[in-house]
């Protein structure tokens, strides 16, 4: 278990220079997620048109893992359908829990988080953005 497996270059770059950081003024769906154990607090907002994610942003404060994961997630899901985003989330959860070594190319830069599986206490950080995105979808479906 080396720190280099966790704090990879991609993760540090997204942490220090996050993509899609901010709040969408008029999102079609949004949600706020907390990580009670360490106090991470993330807000994810998206604009979905005809089942496709046209815009995605995140804001809040948290550790390098939660922030960079949310940053990479927004890059990945923009332009994808809600269903595809949900299946990416499921694949991501399996990867960071160490349940699946055969994650495909569709996870893109998010494969930088494969090292998280060796740091079980950080799994919640890596998945916070994805869970919050899924909560946003749920709140949108209820409307």
């Amino acid at each position, binding site marked *: *278990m*080396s*720190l280099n497996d*966790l*704090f990879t*270059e*991609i993760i*540090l*770059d*997204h942490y*220090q*220079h996050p993509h899609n950081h901010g709040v969408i003024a008029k999102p079609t769906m949004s949600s706020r997620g907390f990580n009670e*154990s*360490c*106090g*991470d*607090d993330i807000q994810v907002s998206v604009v979905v048109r005809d089942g496709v994610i046209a815009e995605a942003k995140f804001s809040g*404060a*948290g*550790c*390098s*893992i939660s922030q960079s994961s949310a940053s990479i997630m927004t890059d990945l899901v923009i332009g994808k359908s809600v269903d595809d985003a949900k299946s990416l989330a499921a694949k991501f959860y399996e990867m960071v829990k160490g349940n699946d070594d055969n994650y495909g190319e569709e996870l893109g*830069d998010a494969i930088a988080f494969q090292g998280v599986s060796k*740091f079980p*206490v*950080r799994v919640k*950080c890596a998945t916070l953005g994805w869970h919050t995105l899924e909560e946003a979808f749920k709140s949108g479906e209820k409307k």
Partner: protein
Amino acid sequence: MNHDLKHDFPIFFHWDSKGKPLIYLDSAATTQKPRQVIQAIDDYYSKYNANVHRGTYELSQVATDLYEESRTEVARFINAHESESIVFTRNATESLNLIAYAWGLNNLHEGDEVILSEMEHHSNLVPWHIVARHTGAVLKFIKMGGDFQLDLSSLRKNLTAKTKIVSVVHVSNVLGTINPVKEIARLAHEAGAMVIIDGAQSVPHMPVDVQDIGCDFFAFSGHKMCGPTGIGVLYGRLEILDRMEPFLGGGEMINEVFPTTSNYAKPPYKFEAGTPNISGAIGLKAAIEYLENIGLQNVMAHEIELGNYAAERLGAIEGIHIFRPKKAGTGVISFTVDNVHPHDISTILDSEGIAIRAGHHCAQPLMRTLQVQSTARASFYVYNDKQDVEALAKALEKGVAIFKPRKKADVFK
């Protein structure tokens, strides 16, 4: 400490932290357990296990005697006037909840005021939120002033005839500030209010005398002072406990029970429904003996020395911010480091075998006062030494290097 107390704590010889020795700096969360305490619990279960206060045979009487000796020992340890004023609970949280539910819900009315402080742990906040919601009582707060000290002028300002309770933490679990509880108790009593002290972070680290403080209630946990988890203490002035409604109902807390009514046993039994944590109380007694053998003054002096050394050593690290009073009386040191989130600090330290706490420390309102989302916290105890502080500082320097701000990489756009 004049000898290596680490040898008393088996965990330092069992836990293999990736081939590195365990450097345990999270004693404010829970302390490690010396073999003397583990042995006392083992002895009880191996040789004397029986239920207490109901057996009509010798074994049960021995178990009862051991349990009650622990109560007497706790009373002597904090200088309570009588052992009947010692109620065994699960922990300080349950002790505080007991007062809130049994006294607060039954005696507070709309417009009554409860004064807390800005430094409280959630365990001395949330029970009062619940009581306030049910009774209409109003919560007021003692503000924090300079050098992380409570500003008693805000207590004086808030104390009125409406004030029914002043409930304050003795030592902050985040800052290590020792609050002037004797002065707070005096001011509160002058205004006719009842005084509750949360001693979870004081009793393990310094001599405490509840009669000298002059409080009406005092709460603490066994597991933060070398004792087992699941045993806590509520000290209450006997005349108040006598008048109080019970908290939980069931066996052991009753006198007579009829189909639709019952009357209750005297304190402390009125507040100990069901089979209590017998082994926990016995383990707590062993923990008290262990600490008194070292001497609480020595424990305190050792922690101040390590805390001051840590403040000096960590203070030299670039970008560090330390939240600790200049005149500190404990071995707690909270800090943040620019560009390195506390949770990342904790992971980096963990890879070196160093255990610290990162987060809001169950004190979210205090985090807002300090204007931080979370902090990292190292807390020292009898088994720590200067080498532990040195390892902490070195690992922190490593973390600062990993998270050194860098230019945006072109390849990862």
